[in-house]
């Protein structure tokens, strides 16, 4: 305790002698801290927005479109079309334990949907109940998604994308209302919650009309899946699961399990991984830029410490004569540099906190700015900034301190 008290007093006496310089340096550190936090939290905000958009279509899923064979196999020619049937979904789930959940859809463009006088053409899908979780078709309060019973009984129920519901009902409650899909009456059972979707196939989900797969089959006569979706139990198993799907389907439909054209797969796990890495790269880059700003401020601290060491040369000699060990002298100056660093860092954290709070309050309509305009300070960012700050302040103190600790006491006592 007494040590700290001495050090604080030393710091104050140094501060009084280099007031202007220390104030400026503390400001420089604060500025460096602000820029590091701002850069990192804008990066974090961007990352979260992009990730949210990226996973709005579903997280950890692989989307499969049946295609055409590109290799001849067991006497069969190439160029054969592969058709997948709804029962293949349960077959795959049964045969491949690495797969947690499967789903699929029939789909069709330009399907008429009418409510009262309002009529529009929409992309309509006939799906399995698993789409609620696999494809994030989450219903808003007061509604529900298509369930197994709807499928079993081929009920005429419809789940609407929120954009479709908005245009059709214009703010009116949609759930429970009767709509006509290709002149067939359907009851609306749910409306999807809004989502920022950046990944999609056949249009954004919020513009869709979704009905049970079996009902779809009855009305439009579809028997083959347009899209098949599966989700591995653990993301690390995705490659294995994909190969298994090729193998199981290949043996059923007689195609080469290495024929990647027979089934087109969109591995969102892989894309999301790449995305995550790119975003991490951006954040590291921003952290380095912010770190350089801090480093410049750190040079200022080092400079102050060199001056302090020179000014206190005689005092260091006296302390050594009284029996101070080199490491005591070393720590005395390092702690002083850390004190300057902590003061600047504290001010910087305060300012950055205020700026970010203000920015987050500004309402943003622009699509592009939506991604940039939501800086987020996470605990990690605060910790990383504090660590960088400490390292720089430590180094800024270390080199001058080492010079102080190496002072020859006899010579420093002659020093005026």
């Amino acid at each position, binding site marked *: *305790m*007494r*040590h700290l008290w*001495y050090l604080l*007093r*030393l710091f*104050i*006496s140094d501060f009084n002698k280099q007031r202007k310089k220390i104030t400026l340096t503390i400001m420089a550190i604060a500025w460096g801290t602000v820029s590091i936090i701002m850069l990192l939290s804008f990066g974090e905000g961007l990352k979260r927005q992009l990730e949210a958009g990226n996973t709005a279509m579903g997280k950890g899923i692989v989307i499969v479109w049946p295609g055409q064979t590109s290799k001849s196999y067991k006497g069969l020619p190439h160029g054969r079309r592969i058709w997948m049937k709804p029962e293949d979904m349960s077959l795959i789930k049964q045969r491949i334990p690495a797969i947690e959940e499967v789903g699929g859809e029939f789909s069709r463009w330009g399907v008429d949907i009418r409510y009262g006088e309002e009529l529009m053409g929409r992309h309509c899908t006939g799906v399995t109940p698993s789409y609620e979780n696999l494809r994030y078709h989450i219903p808003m309060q007061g509604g529900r998604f298509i369930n197994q019973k709807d499928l079993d009984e081929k009920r005429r129920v419809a789940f609407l994308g929120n954009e479709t519901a908005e245009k059709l009902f214009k703010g009116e409650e949609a759930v429970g209302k009767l709509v006509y899909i290709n002149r067939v009456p359907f009851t609306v059972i749910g409306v999807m919650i809004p989502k920022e979707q950046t990944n999609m196939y056949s249009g954004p989900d919020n513009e869709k009309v979704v009905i049970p797969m079996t009902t779809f089959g009855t009305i439009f006569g579809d028997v083959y899946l347009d899209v098949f979706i599966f989700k591995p139990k653990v993301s690390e198993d995705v490659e294995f699961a994909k190969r298994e799907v090729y193998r199981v389907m290949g043996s059923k439909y007689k195609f080469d399990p290495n024929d990647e054209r027979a089934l087109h797969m969109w591995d969102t796990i892989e894309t999301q991984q790449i995305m995550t890495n790119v975003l991490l790269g951006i954040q590291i880059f921003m952290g380095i830029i912010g770190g350089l700003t801090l480093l410049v401020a750190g040079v200022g601290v080092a400079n102050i410490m060199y001056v302090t060491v020179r000014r206190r040369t*005689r*005092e260091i*000699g*006296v*302390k*050594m*004569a*009284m*029996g*101070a*060990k*080199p*490491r*005591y002298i070393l720590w005395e100056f390092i702690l002083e540099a850390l004190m300057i660093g902590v003061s600047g860092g504290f001010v910087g954290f305060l300012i950055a906190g205020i700026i970010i709070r203000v920015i987050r309050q500004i309402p943003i309509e622009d699509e592009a700015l939506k991604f940039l305009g939501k800086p987020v300070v996470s605990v990690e960012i605060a910790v990383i900034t504090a660590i960088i700050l400490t390292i720089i302040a430590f180094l800024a103190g270390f080199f001058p301190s080492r010079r102080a600790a190496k002072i*020859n*006491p*006899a*010579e420093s*006592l*002659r020093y005026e």
Partner: protein
Amino acid sequence: MPLIQMQELNKKYNSGKVSVEALKDINVDVEENEFIAIVGPSGSGKSTLMNIMGCLDAPSSGDYILDGAKVSDLKPNRLADIRNRKIGFVFQNFNLLPYASAYENVELPLIFGGIGPKRRKSRVMELLDRVGLADRAEHKPTELSGGEMQRVAIARALANNPAIILADEPTGNLDSVAGGSIMEIFHELHRDGATLIVITHDRQIANNIPRVIKLKDGLVVDSL
């Protein structure tokens, strides 16, 4: 065995092109509880000799044996320990920390010596009492007279009960009254068993000290 042994000790300063031979072939032994004055003209090497005795500097050649240990063999941390426990320094210009009180100045060697806070407190007050400054504990050096500052410095030098007290012209900046009271304290310490080595210009002071070492141009001489 003598407390201090110096054998063929030399000290050479190399500053740029000029090199100064500050000490030449010094052979000095100091027994326990001796009281020695070092005298000689300015630049004769007195301070250099004292710095080596106090382990603040190393000789260029020759051996310095303190309390049986060859000092050149010791590591920096060990030297710091010796300066802390075995040696007490008193300087001409006091060298008190200007921002610290008398109390805190005296406390400094106790902190370096790792003494706990309770024992520090009673020891500091005991020391200040001994030099007659118990009522000035909270004063800063600037609030004290020269004689009082030097008494604080002596209290600080005595903090860890050192065997040897080294004083480099301790009365040089004091009037004769203040200087006299400092010398009185030194004589008391001598009676109490301390070993003292004092550099002085003052013939009067030197005459009252049992043994006198005369230095001239880095050599120990019989007469100046």
